[in-house]
């Protein structure tokens, strides 16, 4: 049994890392907003989904025009990524302005409820548009980067099987890593990043130090949503088929990743995302084997939630977070 598990490890690692980077970048959006407003932005998963749809539409459009033959695919993907990121970033800012800012002093239950509402409205609007223009809300994007690479892991040691990699995996991984490093530099090295950290620490004191709090919050939403939207495009490229309801569960898992790494902590979110992705893939590949067929791969969602509940119970501050002391 152990042999079989070890054999599949290279493939599990690769699939898990792909999923993990997606989780990690979405988790960044949750963690940034939580760090600054102490609000779970339920609509973030839907922003990711909207990004996937915008990206697929643009890709289909460009393919239709025939740019794909004129331009290298990677340039086209980059263009699409940037346009989508800007659009979803603006969407995120709009949501903040419309649904969260008026409620900043309301009881904490209320913004959560608007967040759920926003996420429902977005789901349905995307469904309308997709269904009106395509006839079905399940949309398949153009096939890009489909050539398979074979990673000869068996040559390292004979206990491993070979792993196959889609070319898009490399693109997803590289883009996501670039985005994460970019964000890390932005938050830790720039003036706006410093303002962001200041607002996260203490909103009122920051505003006394002439930090424009509203602007900083808007920028936080812009960046988080832009990253989420761009990840949506990557997701669509990697997995091909998308529908308006992918955002919810995926967002929930990304939130789990954020909690796992320590909510409010940006590096923690990255770590948590990667960890969760690998763990989930490991579970879905080996759960049947480990439990002797009692639990199948269909329990992988349960597995992710179980991780969330365990973390919240035993280490609510997460892997990299600092334990918060409650002041009265």
């Amino acid at each position, binding site marked *: 049994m152990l042999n079989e598990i070890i054999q599949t490890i290279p493939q599990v690692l690769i699939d898990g890392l792909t999923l993990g980077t997606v989780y990690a970048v979405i988790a960044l959006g949750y963690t940034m907003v939580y760090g600054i407003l102490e609000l779970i932005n339920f609509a973030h998963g839907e922003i990711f989904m909207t990004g996937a749809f915008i990206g697929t539409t643009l890709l289909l459009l460009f393919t239709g025009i025939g740019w794909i033959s004129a331009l290298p695919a990677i340039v086209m993907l980059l263009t699409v990524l940037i346009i989508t990121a800007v659009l979803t970033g603006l969407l995120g800012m709009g949501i903040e302005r419309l649904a969260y800012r008026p409620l900043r002093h309301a009881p904490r239950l209320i913004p959560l409820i608007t967040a759920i509402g*926003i996420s429902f409205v977005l789901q*349905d609007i995307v469904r309308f548009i997709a269904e009106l223009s395509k006839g079905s809300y399940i949309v398949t994007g153009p096939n890009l980067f489909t050539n398979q690479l074979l990673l000869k892991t068996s040559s390292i040691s004979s206990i491993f099987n070979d792993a196959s990699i889609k070319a898009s995996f490399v693109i997803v991984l590289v883009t996501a890593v670039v985005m994460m490093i970019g964000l890390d530099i932005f938050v830790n090295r720039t003036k706006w990043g410093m303002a962001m950290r200041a607002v996260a620490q203490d909103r009122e004191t920051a505003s006394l130090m002439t930090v424009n709090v509203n602007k900083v919050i808007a920028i936080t939403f812009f960046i988080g949503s832009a990253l989420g939207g761009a990840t949506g495009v990557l997701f669509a490229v990697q997995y091909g088929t998308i529908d308006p309801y992918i955002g919810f569960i995926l967002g929930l898992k990304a939130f789990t990743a954020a909690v796992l790494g320590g909510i409010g902590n940006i590096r923690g979110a990255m770590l948590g995302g990667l960890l969760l992705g690998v763990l989930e893939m490991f579970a879905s590949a080996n759960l049947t084997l480990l439990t002797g067929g009692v639990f199948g791969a269909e329990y992988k969602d349960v597995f992710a939630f179980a991780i969330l509940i365990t973390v919240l119970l035993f280490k609510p501050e997460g892997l990299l977070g600092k334990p918060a002391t409650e002041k009265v």
Partner: protein
Amino acid sequence: MKKIWKKYEHNKLAHGIFLLIYIGVTSLSLYLAQKSVTAFLLLLSSLLLLYYTKFTNLTKWLVAGIVLVFLLPFTASHGDAYQSYMEVSTLVGIYIAMALGLNIVVGMAGLLDLGFVAFFAVGAYTYSIFASSQASHFMPFGTFPLSGESFWIFIVIGCLVAALFGILLGIPVLRVKGDYLAIVTLGFGEIIRIIFNNLDRPVNITNGAMGIPSVTPPRLFGIDFLYPSQFYFIVLVILLITIFTVRRFEHSKIGRSWKAVRENEIAAQSMGIPLVRTKLLAFAIGASFSGMMGVVFAAKQAFVDPTSFTLLESFTILVMVVLGGMGSVPGVILGASVMTILNLQVLSELTNWLNQLSLSGIISIPYALSPAKMQRLIFGAILITFALYRPQGLIPAKNRRFDEKELQRLNRKAISENKKIEQKGV
């Protein structure tokens, strides 16, 4: 106009006459025009009018009882649409009870529970497993399905099992702060659904995605309950008990501690309210209503499968609570009725009407825009609008008013009695 309004605002007789005329006209029109959904809805809305009259509570309950027990079933019973009206009313009752349960958790105790439908599922499965041949797959003893008489016991069992699940969920979850609670309960709701969906292996307990067919109908004095018109009365009785219980809880010590916990946990704790026990009780009681109605639902549908218990259901119940007014019992009843009727009647009627219009070629509405599919948009819009502009809901919650002088008098009485006891002791 204002003058006339002022004059009749406090005139009980005018209220009474108007209400009687209203009820008379609507029930007559329902009696004569059996197919008219409008008449049916107008008759139901007479209860809302009744709520706003100035009569004593006893009168209101009596009138409501007459309308619901006699008038509504009688006037609707002369056409083909009878069973569908009763079906709608039964479902309205089921959803009201669930929304009242969620109202305790969200509205009174302030704990956002997004997986509430899980308890409904637990109740439904509890009955349907034992009231169908399903239980013989794994139970070593006993003959299944159980007879229809067991339904009445199962209402209590479903209630208890759901309460147990509420506590089991509550114990780990309540260590978690407010916002996390929403996520964890959401996850719990999904876990329950996935488990029910996959529990056909290794031991076939729930029959997986296939669902459990042919659940035994309830039976009382040799009569099988098969039609919605019969379930209507079961639901009515349970609903009455539920409303009564909720109102008693609301103004009891535990109800006040829920509200205190909602407003400020730390302050409540420092006033000597046991935090964990109070929250657990809210979870358990809220869940138990839902479990009870789950049993009724399973018996009514005679078929249970995991697709009835999706996230959307949990959110529907949340929308009912938010729409009606968090913490307000009459508000939640109104919210639940409006949402259920909107879902079952208004949207489907609108869809039919639009379909007919596009069939006859007057306008063409694309299939994607048919109102029946717009549930999510409507729910979302309601949640946003109400959270932003009217967070207290349609009928805001009221705290009971106490008469200051009456309280002082009671207080003096208590003091003087204490003195008497002290003097006797000396």
